């Protein structure tokens, strides 16, 4: 357990202290949301209708952009090799890194989502529901992205390759995230089914993502 907390606090500290990595994702999220009205026009009724979709898409892109740093810096300075030789099973340490990554990049997105929702003319009461869908959905994005990040670092590539690998796999998360958000805001479909499926996607990727990512690192970095 101490190894787990040590790794968790190390990663969180690094994310907060080095180069403003944690807030960069939230800033990007804000900019994507601000750019949308310029593209589709300032029509408030239209923005209210596509608001949940824009917020989910923005959150998806923001968490995708941050994935690059998940393993790359650790690989460059050699601490990834130490992790692979350490006492913690690689699956667990990879999962720990993903949790720390979500706490520093996913959680800020959830926190500012209600504010951005107001800018898109989503009702105040509904912004809470919207943030709730992001809260349970973004971990799935991080843990699916974890696999892509591990594959990319094993091939010493990143950037666009990561996006090409990860984005198609996140289709279900996007569908059920937006479906749940829309159900909460405009209805008439019930909120429960898409929301619980979203939870299931997060839990399943929490289990399967670290296994696949650890396999990718083992096979790629030997």
């Amino acid at each position, binding site marked *: 357990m101490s190894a787990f907390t040590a790794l968790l606090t190390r990663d969180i500290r690094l994310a907060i202290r080095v180069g403003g990595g944690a807030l960069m994702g939230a800033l990007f999220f804000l900019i994507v949301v601000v750019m949308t009205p310029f593209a589709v026009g300032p029509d408030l009724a239209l923005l209210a209708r596509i608001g949940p979709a824009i917020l989910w898409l923005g959150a998806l892109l923001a968490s995708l952009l941050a994935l690059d740093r998940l393993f790359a810096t650790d690989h460059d300075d050699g601490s990834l090799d130490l992790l692979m030789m350490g006492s913690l099973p690689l699956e667990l340490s990879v999962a720990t890194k993903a949790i720390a990554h979500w706490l520093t990049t996913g959680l800020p997105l959830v926190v500012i989502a209600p504010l951005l929702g107001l800018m898109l003319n989503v009702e105040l009461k509904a912004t809470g529901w919207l943030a709730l869908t992001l809260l349970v959905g973004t971990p799935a994005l991080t843990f699916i992205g974890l696999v892509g990040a591990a594959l990319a670092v094993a091939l010493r590539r990143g950037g666009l390759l990561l996006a090409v*690998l990860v984005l198609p796999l996140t289709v279900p998360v996007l569908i059920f995230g937006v479906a749940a958000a829309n159900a909460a805001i405009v209805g008439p479909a019930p909120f429960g089914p898409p929301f619980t499926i979203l939870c299931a996607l997060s839990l399943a990727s929490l289990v399967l993502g670290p296994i696949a990512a650890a396999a990718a690192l083992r096979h790629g970095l030997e």
Partner: protein
Amino acid sequence: MPVIDLANPTRFLTVVNRVLPWLIAATVILFAVGLFRAMNAPDDYQQGATVKIMFLHVPAAWLGMFGWGLMSVAALGTLVWRHPLADVAGKAAAPLGAAFTFICLVTGSLWGRPTWGTYWVWDARLTSMLVLLLLYFGVLALYWTAEEPGRGARAAAILSLVGAVNLPIIKFSVDWWNTLHQPASIFRMGGSTIDPAILTPLLIMALAFTLLFVTLHLAVMRNEILRRRVRSMRLIQARELHA
């Protein structure tokens, strides 16, 4: 000769070279029969002659999905047994599967124009085939970026397995998202709803497409084995020049 002997790349090459001409002949004959039967099949009372696109569209869709299945089986061979032939099989299946998926999408789009009135609709089945194509592109991207074949093969194997877990979920979620495409009508409880006059040519075409896939797959595998030999020979040569 026991099947296990095929695991040796050199023996595999001899067997492939012996079998390939027969496979090519069988594919050509089956395509001739299938296309002839398809052309003579009765027109649909609503869709007219455009229903004949189905004879290309449906087998291509099946093989697009079959390609991913083949890649997943090969991925197990790569990750569990580290077998180089499994690497080659997986790598050969990726572009083929992508090509058949692409054929399925193009024919589907051409079929959609006269029947649905538009080249593209965001219907559930079309969309999940499109996502499948994107996943194929991801695997191909991995092969392109890997500098060393073995490393690329292992990375692609992991992605294939992750995709194999994900594909049913994607299919299910896209179905939830939108449904316009007709439900499955060939394999279902209570027998097929397609008339035998159309079903028989369809099955012949499906067999012909499968043989085409197998033929191409074996040929691509042979080429890949030879390509790897050339590569390692070049590396040895470069090392000797350097020394």
